[in-house]
């Protein structure tokens, strides 16, 4: 056992408060050893224990008739029928991606993929929600470019080699992410219902087996790093970032799935944050059993590692499993076939304790349940959500509408992200029905003949102005994306990216966002089956906008998806939901306010949940009846940007529309009121019937035409522009910024 004395300094270094330390002493009935202190510090870190958020996360709806597994396991599971289930979750890897963008993002992908296949499901799709500082006009532009480049190539490196298609996501640029980029990765897998595995140890006397990569000194205290703010010294934390090996992970996937099929595996968990510590105590706690391991038997990459280092290492591509006693050889055989190391490192016991030995001597002995499930729980004070933006418009100059549209199409948030997604293999597995750039990502499940649609959404600007409404709008948009693709939203996962929860105004943002999510998910009947909270997203005291990102999954029959782009000239263009309302305050949260006025003010767009639901039902019905030739929901950039995006198809079909509205023209064109979908159809009268049945306005605003976009307001011309000009602004913006 290490001789290091437990001093108040050492406790503080481990980010444990004196109260937390007292709790440890009372659990153990004695002072902890150095190794035990390390073990507690990672398990009780914000990242692993959710100590600031747990109390509020309980407000989220987690049950539903399709939910097979809600929060608490490695991923949530939804029944998709015909004996099959999908497992999915989103996770953040923000802090590592700032320190070392390539490996930080790569291991973010690796970690979430393991979460999926540890449940027995083969990963079939990845989506990423990315946020960076601005690439233009920022003193940090060069660094932001480097981070963007590193993150994108890290995601590509890992996902492409592993063989999972990266089928969608979002990418936003905002100054508040300058020192704190967000890298949220969503993964989804499929398996038969009877093949689900749980991370639960059982069967006293059963062997505990370690498989995969050897343990090194990388990533020690990664979980704790992710639970603190960044300072100037943070770059020195580079050794805390792990290094990924996607090839090894691919072998691990195949070997684990094959081993599971032998029937000799009792339970299995990946080693992610807090490594061996987390996997042993959580598996023990879930199964109400003890686990005893001998560290000498843990395969090690380096010599002379201490128990503390072995227990806290976050080396990647490692799994822990419990096998049926007497059938170990069947498991070993599979791993040998795949050329992977597998070692029996311990045994399941009946005393409920995590007992760690090193050279035969006990170096840690902690009750599993107290360690894994009874971490401190804080009801942190929360006041008014922090915001410094004014309520009223500061006033701004409006250029003509065509100039504004071109500026918006070429802006970071709205421009084409082709440069990013072309680096991702989005086709491997030949199941991608709608990939990047589509309304929602859609993959078909070949086994069932049905498809799964996915969308990630979040809007930091909205959430900063009102965390509650921002979160609700994100859920609404995500569900609307799925509905516009023809899918029925069924479940959700969330990634909550916030600043320092010890500041009451930040804690208030978190609480309100969670409550907003809860309300909206309850309303849309999309229970949250898991997710992730990333706090302390601050650098040098500068916090990010509160950024709840929501991933919604939906089910649909497999079919050729409806296109975003107009297909044929001469079709009616219908604005389902109507032109909508927006006052000058609500306009302050829009992309127009960001790009043209370079300001943020006011409130997010107003959301009427009931109406939103009716619009979604209507568009699903229209799309599934085959009445829409194209459909695209209105979101960032409003109607004008949606019109342009609909014109970027290979057919080069645009539209001429005339709008009947009292709004000032720039607000009419660029406001972002939700609950609207732009579609083109050869059957306007049938669309009108469906819309009317749902009580939704569906004005025919124009007609599709060849190679041009023309917009007028009550006959007054506002925009008349060739598709080529618009497309050039849209397609070339990102590439010109990254070069």
């Amino acid at each position: 056992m290490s001789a290091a004395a437990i001093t108040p300094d050492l406790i503080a270094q481990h980010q444990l408060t004196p109260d937390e330390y007292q709790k440890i002493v009372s659990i153990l009935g004695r002072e902890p050893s150095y190794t035990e202190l390390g073990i507690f510090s990672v398990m009780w870190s914000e990242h692993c224990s959710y100590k600031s958020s747990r109390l509020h996360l309980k407000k989220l709806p987690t049950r539903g008739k399709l939910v097979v597994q809600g929060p608490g396991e490695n991923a949530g599971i939804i029944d998709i029928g015909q004996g099959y289930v999908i497992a999915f979750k989103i996770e953040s890897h923000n802090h590592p991606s700032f320190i070392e963008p390539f490996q930080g993002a790569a291991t973010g992908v690796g970690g979430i993929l393991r979460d999926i296949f540890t449940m027995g499901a083969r990963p079939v799709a990845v989506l990423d929600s990315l946020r960076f500082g601005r690439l233009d006009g920022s003193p940090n532009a060069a660094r932001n470019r480097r981070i963007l480049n590193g993150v994108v190539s890290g995601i590509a490196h890992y996902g492409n080699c592993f063989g999972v298609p990266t089928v969608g996501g979002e990418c936003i640029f905002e100054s508040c992410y300058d020192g704190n980029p967000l890298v949220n990765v969503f993964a989804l897998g499929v398996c038969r219902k009877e093949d689900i595995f749980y991370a639960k140890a059982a069967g006293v006397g059963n062997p505990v087996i370690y498989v995969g990569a050897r343990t090194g000194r990388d990533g020690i205290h990664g979980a704790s790093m992710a639970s603190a703010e960044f300072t100037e010294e943070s770059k020195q934390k580079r050794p805390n970032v792990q290094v990924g090996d996607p090839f090894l992970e691919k072998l691990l996937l195949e070997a684990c799935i094959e081993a599971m099929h032998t029937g000799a595996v009792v339970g299995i968990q990946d080693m992610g944050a807090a490594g061996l510590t987390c996997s042993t105590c959580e598996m023990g706690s879930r199964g109400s059993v003890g686990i005893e391991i001998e560290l000498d038997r843990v395969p090690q990459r380096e010599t002379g590692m201490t128990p503390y280092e072995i227990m806290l290492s976050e080396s990647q591509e490692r799994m822990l499993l419990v096998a049926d006693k007497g059938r170990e050889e069947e498991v070993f055989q599979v791993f040998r076939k795949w050329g992977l190391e597998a070692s029996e490192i311990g045994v399941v016991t009946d005393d409920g304790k995590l007992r760690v030995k090193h050279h035969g001597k006990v170096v840690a002995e902690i009750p599993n349940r107290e360690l894994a499930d009874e971490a401190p729980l804080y009801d942190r004070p929360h006041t008014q959500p922090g915001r410094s933006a004014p309520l009223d418009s500061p006033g701004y100059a409006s250029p003509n509408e065509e100039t504004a549209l071109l500026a918006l199409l070429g802006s970071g948030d709205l421009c084409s992200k082709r440069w990013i997604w072309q680096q991702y293999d989005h086709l491997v597995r030949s199941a991608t029905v709608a990939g990047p750039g589509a309304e929602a990502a859609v993959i078909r499940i070949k086994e069932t003949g049905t498809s799964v649609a996915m969308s990630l959404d979040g809007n930091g600007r909205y959430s900063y102005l009102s965390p509650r409404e921002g979160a609700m709008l994100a859920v609404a948009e995500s569900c609307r994306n799925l509905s516009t693709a023809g899918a029925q939203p069924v479940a959700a996962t969330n990634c909550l990216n916030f600043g320092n929860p010890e500041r009451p105004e930040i804690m208030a943002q978190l609480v309100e966002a969670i409550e907003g999510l809860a309300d909206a998910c309850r309303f849309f009947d999309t229970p949250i089956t898991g997710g992730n909270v990333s706090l302390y997203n601050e650098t040098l005291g500068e916090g990010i906008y509160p950024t709840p990102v929501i991933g919604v999954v939906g089910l649909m029959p497999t079919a050729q998806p409806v296109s975003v782009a107009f297909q044929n000239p001469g079709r009616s263009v219908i604005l389902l939901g109507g032109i909508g309302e927006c006052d000058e305050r609500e306009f302050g949260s829009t992309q127009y306010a960001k790009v043209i006025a370079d300001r943020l003010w006011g409130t997010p767009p107003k959301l009427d949940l009931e109406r939103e639901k009716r619009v979604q039902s209507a568009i699903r019905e229209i799309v599934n009846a085959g009445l829409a030739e194209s459909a695209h929901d209105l979101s960032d950039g409003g109607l004008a940007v949606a019109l342009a995006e609909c014109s970027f198809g290979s057919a080069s079909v645009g539209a001429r529309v005339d709008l009947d509205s009292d709004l000032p023209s720039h607000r009419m064109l660029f406001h972002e009121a939700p609950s609207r979908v732009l579609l083109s159809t050869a059957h306007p009268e049938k669309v009108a019937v469906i819309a009317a049945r749902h009580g939704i306005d569906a004005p025919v605003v124009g007609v599709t035409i060849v190679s041009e976009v023309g917009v007028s307001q009550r006959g007054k011309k506002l925009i008349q522009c060739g598709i080529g000009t618009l497309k050039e602004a849209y397609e070339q913006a990102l590439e010109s910024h990254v070069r």
Partner: protein
Amino acid sequence: MKFGVIVFPGSNRDHDAAYALEHVLGQQVDLIWHDSSKLGAVDAVVLPGGFSYGDYLRCGAIAKFSPVMNAVKKFAADGGLVLGICNGFQILVEAGLLPGALIRNRGLQFICREVQLRAATTDSPFTCTASKDRVYRVPIAHGEGCYFADERTLDELEAEDRVAFRYVDNPNGSLRDIAGVLNRERNVMGMMPHPEDATEPLMGSCDGLVVFQSLLAAAVRA
């Protein structure tokens, strides 16, 4: 027809190839593990895409030492049909079954997108049902797909009509727009684009079928 699809550690389009052959084309498929020394009774062999052995060292450089490659070489020498797709192409080149090399894309980045191809010859079992008059839409997904060979080899390939496919819109800097080549005996072909990922309307294109349908037609003729 019975196809053997080789599975190297790190192959990841083995499933795609098997799915296209089995479910779209109704053929039999055997997945053959990399350490088997025999191929069994197969009529054609597919080396699928992926990252065999992690593509560490150099794409395909380790896979060529796989035990199964001896069997593949013998199969090819005996006139058996061998199709290498993407990583499979890289392996065939490393193994010396096809000339040239595949180096880093000119833009240095991995590229995944649809490209346009033209069949450069119809005189091969892989392209015999193709038409030189049309463009085939097939996706690529690679970081090292730039076809490279010395001038003499390139001239020889052209003189012997051994360029199987050419890019219409060269995405990766391949010399002379080469997307796929044949061996001298015309029973081994490697191509960077993924015909297996363009075999159903839901995949966005069915143009990749031409390669497999050619193989089926050639087998009937043989």
